[in-house]
Structures are given as C-alpha cells and as structure tokens.
C-alpha cells in the first residue's frame, strides 16, 4: 500500500520480558485503524514501540516505504507522532507555547494551523496564556490531541484519548480525528470506548497476549457489533 504504515512481525521487549510477539498489520493514509483488546494485551506497547520507546525491538515498522529506525525524535521527524494515554502536556509552558512547539510543516502541503485546531477545540482558545499544567484533565487531553495535529504528521497514534472525558470533550476528539483523516493523516487508535471506535474506525484489530488475533473491516463490525463488544472491556 503506497504511503502506508506497515507493521511487519514487530516484537518488543522491556528488559528481558517480551511484550509483543510478532504484530503485523497495515494502516493506510487517511484511514483509522483501531487496536482493541483487554488491558495488558500490548496495545500501548505497540504505539510506544513505533516511537522507539521500548528497550528492544525486533521486526520492523515501515512508513512510506522507509523503515522507522533510530531515536524517537527521528521517527517523529519522519512523520509519526504519539498522543500518550497520560496527557503529557508540557506543564510549565502555556497552551500557546505547547501548540507552537509542536508546529511543523506538512509534507503534503495541507498544514493544520493553530486557528484550525482552535476551531475544533475552542476551549483551548480561551486558555492560550494559561500554563498547561493548570488545565483540567479534559482540557489537557484536548491540548495533546491539538498539539499532535499541529505536528502535521503522516500518521498519528492516539492512546485512549477519551478515557475519563465528558461527552462534550469526546465529541471534540472525534471531530479532530475526522479532521485529521480528511487531511490524509492515518490514525492508529487505541480505545476502550467501543462507541468511539465504531464511529471513526475503518479497520479493527483485536490484540491478545501481544499478538493480533482477529481483524475486522468496518462493515463486518457494524453488521455484528456484539462480536467485538464481547471481546472488550467496555466502560
């Protein structure tokens, strides 16, 4: 698949513990791949391994035909970014500075601007001069998603972006995913909330014990959503 993000038999280790056991799947440009599964099955590790944030890797991840290698910043500069599950804002930077520090030009020439990000997350516009560490949890989550959009990557990885959020915030996160997809940004979404996954996902991969054990396309899931629901812990 041209421009795809391809996971090829990826294995990841923390110390001597092997967490991923040969993960293989593909994500296309402008599509959303949902990684689903119970806690501790390797979803977050898959995202962290993509960024080179594990102790050791085997197998490979290929982006636009080029293998992702080297330190995290280089992988990011190749066009991939991560929204981690623990709302990692830069707490001593203002909201404005958090957004500006991430801003990069898009390789495709369709930049997300700060103004566009604030249209999706208007609450952030009211907090631009506020230190990010003083924002509420929901606002911090919106900030990290907006920040990732402004990095204008080829692919964005979101780790449980709606966990613990109020419904209005969840809607904004969904809007941001749609906006990114419309710009051709591919998304790997780890999500415990099945409704959001069903609303935005194109392909669904179920993980167990560090492997992908089942995959579904959107039509299969919409025809029988209970099949997925039975495999997941849904809040």
């Amino acid at each position, binding site marked *: 698949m041209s421009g795809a993000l391809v996971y090829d038999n990826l294995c990841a280790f923390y110390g001597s513990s092997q967490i991923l056991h040969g993960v293989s799947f593909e994500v296309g440009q402008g599509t959303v791949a949902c990684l689903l599964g119970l806690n501790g099955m390797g979803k977050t590790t898959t995202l962290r391994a993509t960024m080179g*944030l594990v102790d050791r890797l085997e197998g490979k991840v290929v982006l636009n035909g080029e293998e992702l290698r080297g330190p995290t910043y*280089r992988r990011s500069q190749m066009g991939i970014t991560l929204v981690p599950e623990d709302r990692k804002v830069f707490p001593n930077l203002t909201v404005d500075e958090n957004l500006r520090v991430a801003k990069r030009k898009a390789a495709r020439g369709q930049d997300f601007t700060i103004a566009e990000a604030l249209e999706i997350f208007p609450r952030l516009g009211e907090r631009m001069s506020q230190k990010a560490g003083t924002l509420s949890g929901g606002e911090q989550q919106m900030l990290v998603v907006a920040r990732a959009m402004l990095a204008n990557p080829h692919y964005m990885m979101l780790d449980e972006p709606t966990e613990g959020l109020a419904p209005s915030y969840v809607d904004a996160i969904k809007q941001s995913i749609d906006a990114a997809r419309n710009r051709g940004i591919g998304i790997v979404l780890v999500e415990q909330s099945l409704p959001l996954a069903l609303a935005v996902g194109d392909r669904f991969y179920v993980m167990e014990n560090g492997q992908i054990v089942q995959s579904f396309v959107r039509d299969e899931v919409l025809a029988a959503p209970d099949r997925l629901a039975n495999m997941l812990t849904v809040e």
Partner: protein
Amino acid sequence: MLAASLALNGLVMGSVLLLFSLGLTLIYGVGRIVNFAHGAFFSLGAMAGIWLANSGLPFWAALLIAPIGVGLLGVLLDWAVFARIRDRPMVDSLLLTFGLALLITGVLYELGGRNVQILAIPSALQGVVDIGAIKLPMYRVFLSLLAILLTIALLLFLKNSDWGLRVRAANDDPEMGACLGIDRENLMHSVVGVSAALAAVSGVVGAPIFTAYAAVGDKILILAFMTVILGGLGSLRGAIVAAYVVGLITVFGEGYFGGQLALMLLFVLVMAMLINWPRGFFGEGRTE
C-alpha cells in the same frame, strides 16, 4: 554598616551562584544529568582568565574569550561523553561527571592551578560607588549587575526564541518532546555549551574576589547543588530565588557565626526542604 556590607557580599555571592546554577539546572532539566563537572567549568573559566590576563590581554577580552572557549569545550564534552550515558540510570551520570571533574581539576593542577592567584580588577572598575552613607566596591556592584543582566538575557532568550521554547519543552518532558520531533541530542550540545560558558563567566568575574586555582569551583559547586535543591530540580525561577537565599545565608552566616556554622545552617535547610518540600520553593521541581 556590617549588615550592609554582608548584604552586598551576599548579593554578589548569590549573583555568581545564579549564573552558575542556571546552567546546572538546565543540564539536569533537559538531559537528566547531575553534572559534577560543572564546578570544573567554573575553575577552568577562572584559570583561563588568569592565563589570558597573564598573556597581556585585557580583562574584558578574557571575559569574552574564556567563556567562549569553555562553552565550546562543553559542547565537545556533551557530544563525546555525556551523550554516551543519556537516559542511563542517574548513578552513571554522577560517577562519570565526578570522574570528569577530577580529570579537569588534575589537568588544571598541572597547568599552574596549584597556586592561588587573583585576577586584577580592571582600572575602570576600581574604586567605590557612593549610595548615601554606604560605600559599595564598584567591582562587586559590576559583578552583581552583570550576573543579573546575563540572567535576564538568558531568561528572555528562553522565553522568546524557538531554541528556548524547545529547551523548556524538553526540560518539562524530554520523552514527549522527542515524540514531537525535538532533537534532544543537538539541543543538549547547545545547552551544555551555554551552561559551561555561564559557569566560565562566573569563574572569570569571580576570580578577583574568590581567587583562581584548580579546585576553586568545588565550593561553589556544593553551594550550587544546595541552590538547585532548594529551588527544585529543573526549576529555573526556583534557582533564581534559591541562589540569593544561599548567597545571603552563606555570607551572613560566615559574618556572624563563622564559615562552618554557615554551611551547617545551609545543610539543615536543604535537609528540611528535601524531607518536607522536595519540589523546591515553587513546588515545580522534580523528585526522581
């Protein structure tokens, strides 16, 4: 009069500590390296000032050249040494930088640093400044103003430049910074370079007061670690306040109770902070 004199000396000591500690704080904040070699940068600056002055260059030239040289050495050391232990357990950086400090100090001993020397105050800065009934030595006023101006310049650059934005982001969260494409390696080279240069500036301007010899940076390093702990690890504004607190306590303690008691007082304060307020004056330091 004694109190006024001690207050001025406390401000001078605080200003030197400020220049020195900001670099220490930045290196820890961005690179998570506790840099025991930072005192050696101060000694190197002081000794370089002496060498340059002895070679016939004016004080002002020494004040410019020595920090540039030490700053470039800092860049080289980060590239060749510190980068090898990035993200390793903190004990690795403690041992490595301690060894590096001993190495630099040993080299300075062999290059004439056994003898205590004093850098001559330039003629333009000799004399006193009259402020009402108080007469202040002009050089000490100059030193304090220079330190304050350089600190303001550094803080403005950190606040307003792209470099500063990346440094502050990496200071907050290096891993997240990397996820957004911030190249911490190149950033760290520049941070260590700037920090080493600031330590050298404080070494050169301190040489007429604190003298210059191979291990002159040792005492200031201890005081700087206390500054960084009191201010909170990685907290820039905490370091600013703490530098003057440590400077004033040190000088007033030495003036009224003697040097050892002053240090004991500081150690008690540092221990109390570590136990009760480990994140420092503003509660924004790290505790790992």
